[in-house]
């Protein structure tokens, strides 16, 4: 399918409160395919945009469990199955001694899955993105707050949406060509 010429419309706000308010109104107006861009996490913004809970914690939990079991079994296999050796008269399965490495493996696996999971869910890395086409978007990492309604939204219509955004008290509205 051919990509539409515009990715969407971008409204620039000067402080987070305005943005959150705008997000609420946009959602009430029935817009769904939209996203907000802020220089730091803004409280209530995600709920305003109607995002639900993330799956990161579940990934981390699974990662942790895998690391834990894998860590212990590795030691058990090496000490008991692979090459059982009498070490200082200690039992082959000296599980108390194996706790430490098991724990470390748990943490390691969990931490890795947290970061990789986050990146994966965010679709990062993604150095190229339409929003970067907007010159003023550079301020998104400084002190400006942006709301973007994407052209793929069913209710999207270039003129109507632009007017709607203007009505939200933004500094200006810009086209985001894809």
């Amino acid at each position, binding site marked *: 399918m051919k990509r539409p010429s515009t990715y969407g419309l971008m409204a620039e706000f*000067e402080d*987070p409160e305005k943005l959150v308010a705008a997000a609420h109104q946009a959602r009430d107006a029935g817009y769904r395919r939209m*996203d*907000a*861009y*802020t*220089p*730091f*996490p*803004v409280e209530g*913004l*995600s709920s305003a*945009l109607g*995002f639900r809970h*993330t799956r*990161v*914690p579940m990934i*981390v939990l699974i990662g942790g469990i895998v690391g834990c079991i894998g860590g212990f079994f*590795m*030691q058990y296999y*090496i*000490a008991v199955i*692979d*090459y059982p050796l009498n*070490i*200082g008269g*200690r039992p082959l399965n*000296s599980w108390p*001694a*194996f706790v*430490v*490495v098991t*724990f*470390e*493996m748990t*943490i*390691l696996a*969990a*931490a*890795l899955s*947290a*970061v990789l999971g*986050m990146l994966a*869910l*965010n679709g*990062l*890395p*993604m*150095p*190229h*993105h339409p929003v*970067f086409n907007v010159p003023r*978007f*550079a*301020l*998104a*990492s*400084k*002190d400006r707050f942006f709301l973007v309604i994407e052209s793929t939204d069913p209710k999207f219509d270039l003129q109507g949406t632009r007017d709607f955004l203007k009505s939200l008290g933004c*500094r200006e509205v810009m086209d985001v060509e894809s």
Partner: protein
Amino acid sequence: MHERLRGTVNSSEQSPVIEPGYTFASVTDQISAIVLRRGTPLGWIVGFTVSFTVVMVLLFAIAYLFTVGVGIWGINIPVAWGFAIINFVWWIGIGHAGTLISAILLLLNQKWRTSINRFAEAMTLFAVACAAMFPLLHLGRPWYFYWLFPYPNTMGIQPQFRSPLVWDVFAVSTYFTVSLLFWFVGLIPDLATLRDRAPRRAGQIIYGILAMGWRGSARHWQRYEVAYLLLAGLATPLVVSVHTVVSFDFAISILPGWHTTIFPPYFVAGAIYSGFAMVLVLAIPLRKFYGLEGFITMRHIVNMAKVMLATGLIVAYGYMMEVFMAWYSGDTFEWAMTKNRMFGPYGPWYWALIVCNILTPQMLWIKKIRERVAAVFVISIVVLTGMWLERYVIVITSLHRDFLPSSWGMYSATVWDWATFIGTIGLFLALLFLFIRFLPMISIAEVRALLTETEGKES
């Protein structure tokens, strides 16, 4: 367009966590400017050159070590562990403060951590890097270091997981990896900021690649914050475990003075103790040099001084319990070791460490001293020295006179021991200089967030 002055008068009587008069813009500009706009300051060049020269000393010491063998050090039988292990424990300990500030204080929702956590974490990484060198260097046959990792090999033999040294390998490498992730994840938004501000193409591309296309999307922020919080939650038990494991290197053995149950808690406390000392030693000159008093306020200094005082007291308790248990256990060897530690040939070392670690920090009870930046700086250095001495005393005095008087022996470091130790300090500083030159030493995004929150408090 209106520019409302933002700032904070914190509810508490203390000085604010960030001086009034900062806006999102000014915060961003001032911090990123250190990296982007300003040319390299002369001080930086001098500092880096000096530390880099010391790194060269380290490299030479290592080359000589690999060529001739660990015999160039002062170690012998009975004292088969010397500087290498002492420095290892010392550096690892220093590392702990970074993780503690960024992870534990985050969980405890301590706002004042915000402007110091970034370079505290960096410090952690570099300290752990220095520490991790020593276990490798101190091997008799360092080129076989990889035998400590489990991997399928033609010998059909694997590491021995009852050994604390293997625990170390896992603990330290995990610790390093997790700290690195934690640090990098924290950096991503700021890297984006730098990407967007970098004047030159090269900068844009480098920071751009590192930023991985971060664009501050609300969705991303949501997952980001969860992941960051979880990382903190994972790092917290980790940081406690690491020095516990390090203490096992000694506690698991049967040597008098090593074989004690109090080691884990008091090693962890000691680690945080020395770590905060190091943060102060770095923060105080930095804020002066880069004019960051606005971000690293007296509030930070004072709080860290208090943490030092508290952990210092825990350590002091550890010392007392050691001596008490040695006497109370009625164990000939323990008691003999303790007496020898205090009044034997290494007595002066022991008393020096008592002065550095227990007596000196008590001055921090006094508000005036706590608020004198110079005083805190000096005390921190004293504490760092003390903690190094503590490790020296623990390692040497327990080994040099253990069970059989026939094999008692003395230990003294050689020039190569010192070269390696000082060399790692050089490495640590060199890395730190590079960090403050090319990465934002204060988390811009978090400070922005801090501004809104403090504003929220005020209204």
